[in-house]
C-alpha cells in the first residue's frame, strides 16, 4: 500500500509541474531557458509548497487528534488556524514592518496559546460524548475567527486577512514559500516521537505509568500542531479538512500506531492537497479556484462519507 500511495504522489507531482497557465513541456525544458525559469521560479516552488503544506497539515491534524483523544478535531477549524491569524493581525497592527518570519513567529505563539485553551476546554467535556469536542472546537474557532474579522474590519484590513483565511497556492514563488520547510522539520520531529504520541493517545495515566513526561510531551505536541498550522497560514492561508479527513481515513486502513501511520498520513495529505490544487488550476482554466475552496468541497464529501460509514465497532 505504501508503494502505491508513494507512486500516486510522484505522479501528481509530475502533473503539477506541467499544468498551469504558461505552457511547459518536458521535452523543451532543458533547451529553453525561459521554460526552465518558469519551472524553477513558479512550478517547482508551487508543487513543493503543496506537498509540504499538505503533509504538514495532515500530520498536525493527526497529532492534534492524538492530544485531544478525539478523531473529529483539526487545527484548521478548532481555533489553531484562527489564533494564528489573530497573531499575524496583531503583528501587522503593532509591528507593521515585520518580516514573514517574524509574522510566523507571532502566529505560532498565538496558535500555541489558542490551541492550549481549546485543549483545556476539550478535557473538561464528558468523554462519553465524542461529538461534543469537535462541536465546541467549531464554535471556539468561529469565535476566534470572528474576533479576527472584527479587528480587521475596524482597522480596515479585511482585504489583507482574506489572504490568510483563504488558502491558495497561486502566489507561491521562489523566495516566498521556504518557511514551509519548517513544517517539514516538524513532521520529522513528529515521526521521531511517534511512539510517545501513540502512548499519549492511550491517556494520561497510561502515559505516566509507562514513564512518559506527559506535560512535556503535551507541550511538544502542541508546538508541532501550532507551528505547522501557523507557518501554513502565513505562507498559504488556511486550508480546511486535510487535517481531519486524511488521518481518519488512514486510521481506518492502518490503525492508530503512529510509527506506521505517520508516513502514510503525510504522503496522503500531500497528495490530497496537490490533487486539489491541480483541480483548482484546471477546472476553470485559465482562471484558478483557490485550493481552500476546492478542499472545502472535496473534504466535506469525504468527511460525510466517513461519518456515514462510522459503525459501532469502528
Amino acid at each position, binding site marked *: 500500500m505504501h508503494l502505491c500511495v508513494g507512486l500516486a504522489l510522484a505522479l501528481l507531482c509530475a502533473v503539477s509541474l506541467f499544468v498551469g497557465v504558461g505552457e511547459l513541456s518536458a521535452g523543451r525544458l532543458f533547451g529553453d531557458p525561459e521554460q526552465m525559469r518558469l519551472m524553477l521560479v513558479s512550478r517547482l516552488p508551487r508543487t513543493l509548497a503543496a506537498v509540504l503544506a499538505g503533509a504538514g497539515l495532515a500530520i498536525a491534524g493527526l497529532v492534534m487528534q492524538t492530544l485531544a*483523544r478525539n478523531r473529529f478535531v483539526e487545527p484548521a477549524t478548532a481555533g489553531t488556524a484562527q489564533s494564528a491569524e489573530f497573531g499575524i493581525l496583531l503583528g501587522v497592527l503593532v509591528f507593521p514592518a515585520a518580516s514573514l518570519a517574524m509574522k510566523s513567529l507571532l502566529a505560532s505563539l498565538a496558535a500555541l496559546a489558542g490551541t492550549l485553551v481549546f485543549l483545556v476546554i476539550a478535557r473538561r467535556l464528558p*468523554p462519553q460524548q465524542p461529538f461534543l469536542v469537535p462541536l465546541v472546537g467549531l464554535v471556539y474557532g468561529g469565535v476566534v475567527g470572528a474576533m479576527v474579522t472584527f479587528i480587521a474590519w475596524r482597522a480596515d484590513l479585511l482585504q489583507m486577512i482574506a489572504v490568510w483565511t483563504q488558502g491558495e497556492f497561486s502566489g507561491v514563488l521562489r523566495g516566498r514559500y521556504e518557511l514551509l520547510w519548517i513544517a517539514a522539520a516538524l513532521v520529522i520531529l513528529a515521526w521521531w516521537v*511517534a*511512539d*510517545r504520541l*501513540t*502512548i499519549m*493517545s*492511550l*491517556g494520561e*495515566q*497510561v502515559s*505516566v*505509568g*509507562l*514513564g*512518559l*513526561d506527559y506535560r512535556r510531551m503535551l507541550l511538544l505536541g502542541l508546538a508541532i500542531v501550532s507551528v505547522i498550522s501557523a507557518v501554513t497560514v502565513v505562507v498559504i492561508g488556511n486550508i480546511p479538512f486535510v487535517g481531519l479527513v486524511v488521518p481518519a481515513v488512514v*486510521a481506518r486502513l492502518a*490503525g*492508530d*500506531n503512529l*510509527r506506521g501511520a505517520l508516513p502514510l498520513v503525510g504522503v496522503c495529505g500531500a497528495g490530497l492537497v496537490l490533487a486539489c490544487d491541480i483541480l483548482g488550476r484546471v477546472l476553470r482554466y485559465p482562471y484558478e479556484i483557490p485550493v481552500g475552496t476546492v478542499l472545502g468541497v472535496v473534504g466535506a464529501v469525504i468527511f460525510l462519507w466517513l461519518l456515514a460509514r462510522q459503525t459501532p*465497532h*469502528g
Partner: protein
Amino acid sequence: MIEIERVSLQLQGAQILHDISLTLPKGGVTALVGPNGAGKSSLLSLIARLSPLQTGSIRIDGMPVDATPGSVLARRIAILRQDNAVASRLRVAELVGFGRFPHSRGRLDAKERALVAEAIARFDLTDLADRYLDTLSGGQRQRALVAMAYCQGTDYLMLDEPLNNLDMRYGRELMGTLRRLADGDGRSILIVLHDINHAAAYADRIVAMRCGRVVAVGTAAEIIDADLLERVFGFRMRVESIGGRRVVLHHR
C-alpha cells in the same frame, strides 16, 4: 518493599483515605479487598504515582514515588488500572509492545521482541496478536491489557481488578500466573480482588479496606473469618472448610 506512611486523600471535599500506614514486604502476592468505594483504587493510584500524593509519604524500595523520575519508576512498577477505555485502534501485539517502552524507548530489538512474544504467548493471545483491540471481546481485551502490564517486566506489578471480564478458566490461569511470577521470578504482586476466595487461595497476605481505612492485614487464615469479613463487607457470610481450605459462601 512498599512503605506507606500516614497517607490521606481528599477529593472534592470528601475524605477518601484516612491516615493510612502500611508496609508491604518485597515479594509475594498481596490482595487488596474491600467493598465498593472503600478506596482500593485510590490507594493503588497513589502507590503507582498516577495521582498526586497529598499528605504522607509512599516509598517503593526506598524511592519516594512523588520525587523519583517517572521513567525510573516505570522500570520498577507497572500498573493496570480498573477502567481502561482504550480508544486507539492498536493491534494486540502493538499494545503489548508498548509495555516495553520504559526499557526500549520505542526501539524494539530482537531481545525486546522476544519478550513481547513471550508475554503474548503467556496470556494466550497468539491467535489475536494481529487483531485490533476494538474488535476483541471484553475478556480478550482485558488479557491484552494484563499482558501489557506484565510485559513491562517490573519488580512490582499492580493490577486493579484484573479478573474483570475474565471467564473462570482465564481467571484461574491469571491467578496461577501471578502466583508463579511471585514464586519463580520473585516479583511482588499487588492485586485488587473482589472474589474473596481467589484472594484466599492465591494471596500470601490480604489487606482489607473499608471506608478509606485499612481494617485488617494478615494471611488468608487470619482474614477469612466470618466476623472479620462481616466487619469489612457489612454482611454475614458462611465460611466453610473444604479439604483444609477456607471457602467463603458469599453468594447466598
